[in-house]
């Protein structure tokens, strides 16, 4: 009532929301056994988990771009029922529990899965391998990129496409020189989202790829194992993941995530 822009109830609820999000992360750092920090961080198992996490998540983000950008373009330009169903299917992994993704991947690519035996014939066996970790990460992470990029493709200025066509540009050329540059901020934001999601992937990974030190045990899986047998290590590794994620957010905040914002509402594509 007194201030027209910040009613007290809204402020209180907002602060409570902020506290709920931030206090558990602060508590994590309060409870980290700092005396174990050196031994846990320098343990070969930790270094292997960190290296595996970074390697697989970067690969997963790369694959998400290679397949996700074309998929986003198909969905953005598609009409009718097929495109509608396609959009729903792409959204599913975002709303499904990741463990369901793992079960589904086993059903498809597992040893007795629908396509698993075929792949095994040509020497591709994904479960219990680092490639399986990447597959699980792509399954849960690529949809974030597709959704982000599709929104940008939809807002590509039709007049610019028409202008490109009138100047004699073919489909591939106008995609490469008009559509894609306009969507670049969204692609970068989508890569960041997909990479972050892949880095944090747990449920689909442990279900589909299993957990083995140095081969498939990424940082989130190492945290989970810690909660089962060594809570101190779980706290240290969790703090490590928070630090890595925070570092990424700080780096991204200034550039890509800001650029990403205007893509969400149906405003013009001229974000740069």
């Amino acid at each position, binding site marked *: 009532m007194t201030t027209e822009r910040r009613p007290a109830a809204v402020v209180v609820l907002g602060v409570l929301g902020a506290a709920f999000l931030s206090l558990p992360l602060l508590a994590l750092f309060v409870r980290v056994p700092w005396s174990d920090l050196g031994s846990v961080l320098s343990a070969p198992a930790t270094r292997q988990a960190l290296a595996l996490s970074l390697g697989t998540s970067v690969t997963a983000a790369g694959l998400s771009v290679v397949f996700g950008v074309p998929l986003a373009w198909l969905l953005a330009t598609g009409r009718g029922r097929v495109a509608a169903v396609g959009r729903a299917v792409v959204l599913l992994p975002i709303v499904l529990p990741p463990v369901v993704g793992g079960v589904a991947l*086993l059903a498809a690519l*597992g*040893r*007795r899965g629908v396509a698993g035996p075929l792949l095994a014939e040509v020497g591709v066996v994904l*479960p*219990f391998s680092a490639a399986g970790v990447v597959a699980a990460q792509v399954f849960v992470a690529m949809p974030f990129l597709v959704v982000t990029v599709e929104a940008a493709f939809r807002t590509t200025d039709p007049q610019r496409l028409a202008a490109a066509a009138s100047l004699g540009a073919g489909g591939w050329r106008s995609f490469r020189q008009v559509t894609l540059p306009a969507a670049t901020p969204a692609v970068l934001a989508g890569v960041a989202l997909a990479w972050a999601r892949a880095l944090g992937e747990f449920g689909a990974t*442990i279900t589909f*790829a*299993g*957990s*083995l*030190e140095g*081969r*498939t*045990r990424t940082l989130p899986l190492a945290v*989970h*194992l810690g*909660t*089962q*047998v*060594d*809570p101190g290590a779980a706290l240290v590794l969790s703090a490590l993941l928070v630090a890595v994620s925070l570092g990424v957010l700080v780096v991204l905040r200034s550039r890509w995530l800001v650029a990403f914002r205007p893509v969400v509402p149906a405003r013009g594509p001229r974000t740069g």
Partner: protein
Amino acid sequence: MLLLSVAAVVSGCASGRAGTDGAAGTGSAELVVFAASSFAAPLGELVDRFQRDRPGVEVRINPASSTALALQIADGAPAGVFVSAGRAPIERAGGRVVDPVVVATDDLVVAVPEGNPGRVRVTADLARVDLRVGACPAGVPCGDYARRVFDESGVVPSVDTEEPDAASLLAKVRSGDLDAAVLYRSQVAAAAPMVESVQLDPPSRVRAEYVVTALRSPDGSPPSPTATAFVEFVTATGAGALREAGFGPP
């Protein structure tokens, strides 16, 4: 942990209300049993029999790795009884443990999928790199027992994955995604015919123990009468049923 306690508070409220509003009256009680995942199935049958004679008593089983459960108990999880696949997790559960008793023992076998597609014959086959071999992590009972078996026989297994607990490990053998894993005999027998057991060769002297204990509340007050009654039921009446299910005597 937080989720667990929230769930317990919520279900506690619900059953409390049922107790006062319903016909059950003073007999109404809820008991949460934290149980080794490998023991959840036989325990479930004991729970059915225990509840049959006690209307108003509701027993819920929370199956997981005994070590994970012990850590949760030490952290104040709202459990009334703990059934552990070994003594080490009992130690880790800390001061809430009251008079732990060995209620059953079990042997270890190699679990293989139906038809034994990997043609596992002897323990040393688990070192074959062409097989998909699973295990439990060190520090979890099924992992520690298996490590003792391997130490005994001098076999260095070629492990492809470490699953969080015995039930998860058995599930991957059942689905055929794993060719072999060292697991408990009665747990494997209960999963027949989808899972078959291969005798350890050379034979192993490693025996798994299931230990049951009532738990003090996190604030130190004694176990509930229902918890004490359940432990007595499992050690006395339950013993025969466990023998029938293939477990060895304590």
